[in-house]
C-alpha cells in the first residue's frame, strides 16, 4: 500500500495540470503541445505525463516545450531538445532502438511462439485416434451419473 500511497500522493494536486496562463494563443500550436506533453514523463512523478501532472517541474517542462514550439521547432526537434537535457527516461514511449527492440518485439514474438505451439498441439489432437481414450471405470461412471442427475 505504501507504493500506492506514494503514487497517489504524487498524483494529487494543489493545482490542476495545465494552467490557463500556459496555454498558447495559437490553437494549432497548443494542440501540438498537448499531444507531445502526453508522451513526456513528469520526472518526479510515477508513470505520469507532464500533461497530467501538477508538479512544478512538469509545469517548467510544459512551458519549455511550448517555448520550443513557438520558436519554430518541429515536433521531433522539440522532443529531442528535451531528451538531450533530461535523458530518454523522459519519454513515456520508449523509442524502438537498440535493446528496446526486445521490448517491442516481445509481444509479437511470443504470439508467434504460442501460435506455433498451439498449432502443433491442435495438429496432434486432430490426428490422434479415438482409441487413446480410456473409458471411465464403472465406479467413476456411477459417480458421474450421480453428479449429473443432481
Amino acid at each position, binding site marked *: 500500500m505504501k507504493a500506492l500511497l506514494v503514487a497517489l500522493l504524487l498524483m494529487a494536486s494543489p493545482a490542476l495540470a495545465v494552467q490557463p496562463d500556459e496555454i498558447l494563443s495559437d490553437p494549432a500550436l497548443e494542440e501540438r503541445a498537448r499531444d507531445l506533453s502526453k508522451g513526456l514523463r513528469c520526472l518526479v512523478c510515477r508513470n505520469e505525463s507532464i500533461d497530467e501532472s501538477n508538479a512544478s517541474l512538469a509545469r517548467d517542462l510544459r512551458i519549455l516545450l511550448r517555448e520550443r514550439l513557438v520558436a519554430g521547432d518541429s515536433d521531433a526537434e522539440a522532443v529531442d531538445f528535451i531528451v538531450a537535457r533530461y535523458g530518454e527516461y523522459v519519454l513515456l514511449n*520508449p523509442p524502438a532502438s537498440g535493446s528496446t527492440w526486445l521490448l517491442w518485439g516481445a*509481444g509479437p514474438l511470443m504470439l508467434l511462439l504460442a501460435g506455433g505451439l498451439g498449432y502443433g498441439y491442435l*495438429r496432434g489432437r486432430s490426428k490422434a485416434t479415438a482409441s487413446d*481414450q480410456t473409458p471411465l471405470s464403472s465406479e467413476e461412471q456411477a459417480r*458421474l451419473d450421480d453428479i449429473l442427475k*443432481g
Partner: protein
Amino acid sequence: MAWGAVAPYDGTMITELGHFALILAFAIAIIQTVVPLIGAQKRWSGWMAVAEPAASAQFALTAFAFGALMWAFVTSDFSLRLVVLNSHSMKPMLYKISGTWGNHEGSMLLWVLIVSLFGAMAAWFGGNLPQTLRARVLAVQAAIGVAFFAFIILTSNPFLRLATPPFDGQDLNPLLQDPGLAFHPPFLYLGYVGLSMTFSFAVAALIEGRVDAAWGRWVRPWTLAAWIFLTIGIALGSWWAYYELGWGGFWFWDPVENASFMPWLLAAALLHSAIVVEKRESLKSWTILLAILAFGFSLIGTFIVRSGLLTSVHAFANDPERGVFILMIMAFFMGGALILFALRASVLEAKGVFSIVSRESALLVNNVLLAVSCFVVFIGTMWPLLAEMFFDRKLSVGPPFFDAAFTPFMVLLGLALPIGSAMPWKRANIGRALRPLRYVFLLAVAVGCLAFVIQTGRSLLGPVGLFLGAWVVMGTIMDLWGRTGRGEGRLRRLTRLPRADWGKMVAHAGLGVTMAGIAGLTAWSQDEIRALPIGGSLDVGSYTVQLDNVERLQGPNYVSTVGSLTLFQNGKEISQLRPEKRFYPVAQMPTTEAAIDYNLARDVYVVIGDEQDTGGWVIRAYIKPLTNWIWIGCALMALGGMLSLSDRRFRVAAGAAKRATPVPAE
C-alpha cells in the same frame, strides 16, 4: 462521530487476544499443511480428516484477529502503532473501518484472512471431492497461509503497541477516504487471493497425478469467483481514479494497476481452458500451468505493491526485508509448483480428439491471445528494471507503449470472440458456423461507418472500437439465439436455456461494451481550461459551463472550496455542478472532488482549481463520451460470471457435499 479520543476505553485486552489468535492460526496452518499431506500419501483417513476442522479453526481465528484490529481502528485505540499512523479520531466511521486495510500491515492481514476463508469454503463445500484430493487441496492452501502468517508475524505485525500513546492519530491518506476506494482493496484481494484456491487445486492434482473432467468442474467455480471479484475490484479502482484524481483518466498502466490486471487476464484464460478440460479432457497440462501462473502473478503483484521495487529501487534497498521475504515466498511456491509440474505433467495426457476447426481450437486461440497480452503487460511493467539491470539504460515504459503494444491483442480477441463462440465442439463446419454472423458483421460495419461519418477527420480508433463493440455484443446475442434451435417456441426456449449460456452471453457482451466505451472515451474526449471570474463561462463542445459562485465550507475533517456552476447545452440549462477542492489539515493534503454530470452518451466533468492572482478561478471542463460504458461493461462481465456461477452444474457440485461418500482407498 460518537467515538471521541477522550472516550474511556476498556477493550484493551481485545488487541492481545487478536494477536494471540493470529499466532494460533499460524500454528494451526502448520498442522493443516503437514498432517493431511502425510495422511493422503499413506491413505490414513484420520490424518486426512484433520484438514477440515483445521481449515475452519484457522479461518475463525484469523477472522477474530482481523476483527480485533478493526475494533482498535473503530475505537481509535492510539496505543496501537498502526492506528496512530493511519487513523484519526475525527475521521468518519466508514473510513475508520476501511482504515483497517488501508495500510500495509492491515492489508496483509486481510490477505491471509481471505486465504483462510477460501480454505474454509473448500472444506465446507468440497464434500464431493475425493478424500485424498480434498486433503491435499486444503494442505496446499494452508501452506500458502503459513508463508503469509509468518510474513505478517515476523515483518509486518499489525498489533505492535506504543509505550506512550499520542492523543490523536496521523489520519488516513485523504485520497483513500472515499467510498469507492474503501471497498476496492477487499474485492481486489478476494480476486487475487481467490486464485490461491485454483493454485491449490492444481498442485494437489499434480501430487495426485490425475486431472480429469471432474477436476475441471471443481476448479472452475473457484476461478470464476476469483475472476468476478477481480473484475469488480479493478472496475472500482478505475472508477475511483476517474472521479477522484481530477482529470478523468480511468487507467494509467501503473505497475500497481498492472499487478491486478495480469492475474485478471490469466484468470480469464484459465476460465476458458478449464471448460476444455471439463468438457473434452484436453489442454490439461496447459490448464494446470495457467492455474500455477495465475496465482504466480498474484504473488508478483503483491511483491510489486508491497516491496516498492518498481516505485524506486532506492525505496526497496532501504527497507528490503519485506520485499525479500515475499520474493522468497514467491520463489518457494512458484519454483516448487513448476518443478512438480515438470515432473508430473507427462502423466496428464489429453484424451479428446478434435479437428483444427472446432470450439476447442477457438478456446485455445482465446488462451493464446490472453496469455500473450498478459506477457506484454508483464514485460512492459518489468522493462525499466530489466533495462537498467542488463543494458544500463534508464528509461520509462508508460501508457503510450501499453496502448500500442497491448491494444492489438484485444482487437484480435474481440474479432475472434463471436466466431469462436459460434463453433461447435469437436469438428466445425466453418461455413455453417459463420452463416448467422454475416448480418451481425454487416450491421457492426455499418455502426463503425456511421461513427466515422459523424466524427470529422479524426483517427480510426473511435469507429473501429464501436465496430468491435457492436460485433461482440450482437455476435454473442446471436449465439444465444442460435441455441434455441428452430421453429416454434424459440422465445420460450430462450428463457429456459441454462444459466451458464446466459452468463456467457452477458459477460461477453460486457467485454464488447467496455471495448466500445474505452475507444469512445479515448478518441472523442474534449477539454477546455480557463480562469473564470464569478459569472464567467466557458464553452466545450455544445456545452457551456458558467461559474455562479465560490464558497468555502467546513467538512468533518477537511476544509473545502466549493464552486457552484450551471451547465447549459445549446443554451438550455441541464444541471447544477458543485466541484470541490478539499484540504485535509491533519495529513496536510489537498484532494479534488470533480463534479460530474453522468449520462449514458457522455459525462461532463468539471474540476475547480486555484484562485488566480489575476482574479477568477481555474475551471477545467471535459466532455467524456461513452465513459460509463466502461463500467457498465465491467458490471455486465461480473454479472455474467455470477450467472454462470449459479448454473445448475455448479450448484449440484456444491449441494452434493452432504450426500457424497468418500472414495475408498485404492
